């Protein structure tokens, strides 16, 4: 409407600087005569009438719109109580329960109410671990909504088209899927792009090949021993050492066999395992990763001891039990007095870890020889044990005082071990854990241990939560939030199954 534009232009500069713009006749006729007013009042009177005229006659634009609606949900909506719990968590209360709760929502074939999806997706954007949980608990609506906002694009599964162009994470996700479904094809894909990739990506790709690793991968991995990157080569050796029939392992066996000599015990003498240290690495040995400086331990342990550890770590443990016709426990007993006892235990522990050998792991744990921690993460052998055996050993650690407030590092170690148990803790272990926590809380819990303590409580089986909320020294500092987690978790999980 041009009359209004004329008025706005005049108003910007000041009404005195131009003549009074004309009004549309329909407005003019309603307004009547305004000439008795002074110039400014007349200007504003006209402008006010026009503004009202425009506002009362405001017409919406029109647009042709094609919208694809979300698929209908095949799951049930949540009850009122559960929606309340979700709102509470999104408002910051007991937020640590959210991942488990979302998992339960999906498992029970329910879906969260749509109006809370934006808040959940925003949270998932910041917390990678929540992403798949939000998508699966959000039903069809979550997929539909995430597709509307580029910030939430993690909702889409990575498309194979972006294998060469996608982000690092997308490419790894694609490779992971290929490797799970068609392992040989996945390897070929890595082989095709290998030369063009930076070292960091090459290393990450090799690590993905650990899934469905087989002897078929050996020729490709063997070639990679000549790769430029030390990190990539180390990742390659880690895989080759798990392939007992590979030429690489055969070479390692050939190198290590002359070094160990087992002598059976007699009536008056105990069995012994004599160790000859390896010689300096030649070019071929260096290519196979036998680098005395590889772990920075050469000054402390000696270069040749490091080489011994590296050799042992790449040899199938079966080789020793078969060659010497001894059980792992007997072999460990034989080396107890050896000056190389710890080096041997380290190499074998590393091998047990790579080969996931539970028998050796049990023997090493009971053998009383501590491996050199620098080569391996803390208490790694527990992760090799079957879940039940691991739970028993974790309970024993608790009884030995793994949770004492004075030693934060041990809490963290224990937590890491606990995280290797899938799902909820077995009830017996859970009970021991609760008893230990309650004991440590008797005179309050320091703040820096609270989030760890909280994560322990999130692992308790839901059936125990009722009893678990009882018997805490609730008045002590830091204890009330723990009890709240327990009772909130109990209420929130129970409500999901009831309504």
């Amino acid at each position, binding site marked *: 409407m041009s009359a209004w534009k004329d008025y706005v232009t005049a108003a910007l500069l000041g009404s005195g600087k131009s003549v009074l713009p004309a009004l549309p006749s329909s407005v003019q006729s309603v307004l009547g005569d305004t000439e008795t007013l002074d110039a400014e009042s007349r200007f504003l*009177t006209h402008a006010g009438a026009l503004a009202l005229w425009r506002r009362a006659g405001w017409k919406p634009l029109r647009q042709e*719109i094609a919208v694809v609606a979300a698929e209908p949900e095949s799951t049930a909506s949540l009850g009122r109580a559960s929606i309340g719990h979700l709102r509470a968590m999104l408002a910051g209360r007991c937020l640590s329960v959210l991942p488990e709760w979302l998992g339960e929502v999906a498992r029970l074939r329910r879906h969260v109410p749509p*109006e809370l*999806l934006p808040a959940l997706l925003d949270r998932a954007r910041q917390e990678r671990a929540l992403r798949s949980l939000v998508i699966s608990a959000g039903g069809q609506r979550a997929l539909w909504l995430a597709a509307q906002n580029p910030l939430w694009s993690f909702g889409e599964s990575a498309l194979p088209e972006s294998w060469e162009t996608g982000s690092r994470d997308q490419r790894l996700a694609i490779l992971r899927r290929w490797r799970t479904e068609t392992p040989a094809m996945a390897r070929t894909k890595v082989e095709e792009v290998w030369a063009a990739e930076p070292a960091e990506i090459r290393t990450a790709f090799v690590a993905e090949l650990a899934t469905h690793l087989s002897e078929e991968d050996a020729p490709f991995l063997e070639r990679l021993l000549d790769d430029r990157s030390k990190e990539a080569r180390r990742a390659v050796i880690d895989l080759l050492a798990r392939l007992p029939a590979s030429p690489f392992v055969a070479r390692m066996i050939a190198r290590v066999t002359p070094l160990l000599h087992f002598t059976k015990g007699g009536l008056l003498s105990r069995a012994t395992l004599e160790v000859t240290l390896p010689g300096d690495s030649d070019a071929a040995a260096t290519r196979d990763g036998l680098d005395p400086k590889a772990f920075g331990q050469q000054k402390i342990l000696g270069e040749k001891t490091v080489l011994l550890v590296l050799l042992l770590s790449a040899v199938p443990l079966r080789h020793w039990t078969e060659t010497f016709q001894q059980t792992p426990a007997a072999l460990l007993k034989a080396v107890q007095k050896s000056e190389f006892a710890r080096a041997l235990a380290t190499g074998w522990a590393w091998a047990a870890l790579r080969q996931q050998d539970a028998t050796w792991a049990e023997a090493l744990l009971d053998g009383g020889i501590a491996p050199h921690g620098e080569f391996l993460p803390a208490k790694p052998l527990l992760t090799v044990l079957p879940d039940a055996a691991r739970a028993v050993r974790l309970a024993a650690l608790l009884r030995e005082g793994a949770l004492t407030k004075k030693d934060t590092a041990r809490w963290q170690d224990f937590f890491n071990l606990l995280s290797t148990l899938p799902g909820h803790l077995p009830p017996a272990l859970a009970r021991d854990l609760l008893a230990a926590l309650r004991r440590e809380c008797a005179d309050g819990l320091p703040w820096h241990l609270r989030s760890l303590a909280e994560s322990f409580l999130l692992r308790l089986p839901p059936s125990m939560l009722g009893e678990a909320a009882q018997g805490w020294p609730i008045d002590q500092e830091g204890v009330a939030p723990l009890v*709240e987690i327990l009772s909130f978790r109990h209420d929130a999980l129970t409500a999901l199954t009831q309504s």
Partner: protein
Amino acid sequence: MQILTTEQVLALAPDAASIKAGQGLSNPGKWVSLGRDDRAVWGECQGSGKNPYRTQADLTGPAFQCSCPSRKFPCKHGIGLLLLLAATPARVSETAAPAWVAEWLTKRQASAEKKAAKAEAEDAPVDPETVAKREADRTKRAAKREDRVRAGLIDLETWLGDLARQGLAHAKQQPAQYFDTIAARMIDAQAPGIARRLREWPGVFASGDGWADRALAEAGTLRWLLHGFSRLDTLPEGLGASVRQAIGWTTAEQELEGAELQRDRWQVIGQIVEEEDRLRVQRTWLIGEETRRPALCLSFAATNQPLDLSLIPGTVIEASVAYYPSGAPLRALVRERHGEPKALVNAIGCETFAEALQRTAELLAGDPWLERTPCLVRECLPLRRDDTWWLCDRDGAIVPLARQFPHAWALLALSGGAPVTVFGEWDGHALHPLSTIAGERFIALGGALA
């Protein structure tokens, strides 16, 4: 007993901090005792002190009482108690009210009766002499105020004239003080309605594209208010009331005594609380199921003081309301309520924006100074185009959503690409949604969602 839903309880919270704290207290473990009967719910909450706080809510109000020192209303304990009741009613067993609850309820009952008695006493006939004196006093006070307003509006006329002559580009460069001074003058002149509008001017100038259009429209609207005041004697009664209301005259509740009552089943369709000058203003919109008439209930409170909590979005109440006099009666007062509120599941709205905007035009014809009009449209689709949110009706007509509307993504999520009913306030430029009904679920959008 009517148990409020979580959404309804959250709508009662005075601020986001209370919601958060209330969520924390909605855990039964925080409560030493809990109970309810057919009228009230109560509990003792262990705080930092030696004795637990005693929290109680009369659900017929709802009204709250708590022994904690918080000046917020309702306090976090009150919110927590009702959230707990909404989420896990089984944890709050029905039992006889303890003495401290019964005492409070009795007191409330007594004070309600006293108030009724007092109202009756004021209605009681007094001798003609007193009546005449009261009337004379009132007339004198009214005349005095009118004189002050008249003097103030002469200054406003001069100020607007200067503004028009010097131009909006000039005004845009003025410091905030330029507007503060004239706004303060309007307060002196007892024209607070104009003062409030003037205080929004710096915001209008800073509002980006189209600011000059908005500033000129506002200047013209104020100029028309001056015209209205100068002809107050000759205006029809309703329009005159609108002029007086826009300038800042208030109508006391007692003045509505004789007003006609409109009885209907009123859908409480939307609610929003805004801060204005250390004052919280709550706007609650009702729509009559029978008459389809909108009604706007206002509640004012200083920060931390209670707002009226009796109208809960998402409910339908059978009630009689009295409209304040106006050229386009909208503001109203709930006079009498009949029966319990019910859940709102299906709103009666316009089918198109054209229809809704036609109603807005009719309201503006009665009161050109209305700042917002209600807009309830069925089957519309939220959309995002070029970084702006729109609502599209069944005819393909689109209206923009207000930029400051915080829940556009939630509204989109609720629609899932299928049409939903949306209620909002239309300010002449954009729609600010306050609620939606999607798949028979009413969702309030005027406050926090989580």
